[in-house]
């Protein structure tokens, strides 16, 4: 007999205001349909009615678990529209900040997902504590704690404070040990392994046809990372390898993110070592206006959740149109396909492995 059950919109495992309607037969899921839009704020419309530098504050609230990535994506789009060169040092600093942001976001994901998978609050407390150390670093670099914003057209709002490099190296040494500890803790845990290995398999063909992105795509064996194939800033000069797995299950998605944290730690170290001196501060706000009318610009960035892209039609004063391709939106759309025919309890394992942020999906 089929039963329809409703999960959310307020539920601890949906990571925000997401409503799932699941049709189940016994314990087998026949169909699960995500209902989104509870956090829809119409950011694309709001942006059309504001000056260029009034909008980053909306962008960072799209993905509130990785505000700096979106902030940077928007600023990069405006830079493309204006044809501005980014200062050399600013490019290195941006890479450092973005990779620190990626580690912080993955740590938050790890804690919440492990919580869903029966590890309860131990790991969550550990990862939140570690994430806080990174947030403190980002706070020093930007002056804000929750929505740390340090991107401005052509460079940064402010250069890194004195002693940032040394503190960051200490933090990275600490995090490297911690990430290894988490891996050892989880991968020897029969509950975690049992609930992730072979669960929610998404094969390569389906991953491409469903258009998933980021770690979800790479866990299905597609070697696509914007940092590598569409390299921006100084990623081309750094020794960076995209992390992929071929299994396509929940465990593979977990493993890709863990490996990415290690890769980010290496990237930040290398960038801090090789960072040139010089000026990194961007242009004054009053100068920000892309001269021509209807100028098209596009920027694509590897945010922690996947490839975020912004398409902008720029007018002299305001954006005429800004279309945002948000990674959570495409990954969440694939849930219906992945969760078909799995067990009811696995829906949350799969949902957790997609790393969703509802602000990002709803826009």
């Amino acid at each position, binding site marked *: 007999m089929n039963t329809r059950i409703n999960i959310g919109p307020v539920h601890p495992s949906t990571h925000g205001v997401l409503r799932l309607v699941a049709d189940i037969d016994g314990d087998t899921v026949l169909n699960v349909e995500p209902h989104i*839009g509870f956090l829809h704020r119409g950011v694309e*419309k709001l942006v059309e009615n504001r000056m260029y530098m009034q909008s980053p504050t909306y962008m960072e609230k799209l993905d509130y678990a990785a505000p700096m990535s979106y902030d940077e994506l928007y600023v990069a789009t405006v830079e493309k529209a204006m044809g501005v060169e980014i200062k050399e040092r600013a490019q290195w600093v941006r890479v450092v900040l973005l990779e620190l942001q990626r580690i912080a976001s993955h740590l938050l994901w790890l804690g919440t997902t492990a919580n869903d998978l029966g590890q309860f609050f131990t790991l969550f407390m550990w990862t939140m504590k570690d994430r806080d150390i990174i947030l403190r670093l980002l706070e020093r670099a930007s002056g804000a704690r929750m929505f740390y914003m340090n991107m401005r057209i052509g460079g940064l709002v402010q250069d890194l404070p004195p002693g940032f490099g040394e503190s960051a190296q200490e933090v990275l040494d600490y995090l490297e040990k911690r990430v290894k500890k988490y891996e050892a803790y989880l991968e020897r845990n029969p509950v975690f392994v049992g609930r992730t290995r072979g669960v929610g398999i998404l094969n390569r063909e389906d991953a*491409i*046809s469903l*258009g998933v992105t980021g770690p979800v795509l790479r866990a299905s064996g597609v070697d696509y990372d914007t940092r590598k194939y569409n390299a921006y800033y100084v990623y081309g000069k750094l020794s960076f390898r995209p992390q992929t797995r071929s299994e396509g299950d929940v465990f593979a998605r977990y493993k890709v993110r863990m490996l990415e944290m290690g890769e980010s730690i290496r990237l930040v170290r290398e960038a801090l070592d090789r960072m040139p001196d010089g000026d990194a501060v961007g242009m004054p706000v009053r100068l920000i206006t892309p001269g021509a009318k209807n100028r098209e610009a596009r920027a694509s960035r590897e945010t922690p959740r996947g490839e975020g*892209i912004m398409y902008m039609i720029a007018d002299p004063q305001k954006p005429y*149109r800004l279309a945002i391709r948000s990674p959570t939106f495409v990954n969440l759309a694939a849930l219906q*396909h992945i969760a078909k025919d799995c067990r009811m309890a696995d829906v949350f394992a799969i949902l957790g492995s997609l790393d969703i942020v509802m602000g990002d999906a709803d826009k």
Partner: protein
Amino acid sequence: MKTERKELLDSLRGLYSKGYTYLVKIYAIDYVKTLNAIYVVRNLEEMKEEALEVELDPADAWVPSVMRIYKAADWYEREMQEMFAIVIRDRDAERLLLEKWNGTAAPLRKNFAWSEPYEKMG
């Protein structure tokens, strides 16, 4: 790359057969005189991207569904229908995606009365 509405499906099928199997995004731009729907597809082997642009008459805005070619088009099409009132033909007309309007309002079109109270928006 500009294309006509009646050639859209054939053009996309052609691109698909050339290896453009990954749909990146479907979005629309309201130029007031025309309403443009844009389909961005990517070839993951050669790392190339193509964008197909279809010009539509705002008074008669519809496009055929491309879901039979790209499964990923599902949510993008629903979002476009909701935000631009571009009707998607040849697919099951499911509920809208985000705001659940009654289907006549088009929040991202330029003539949208966004300072009106919610009840009057449509």
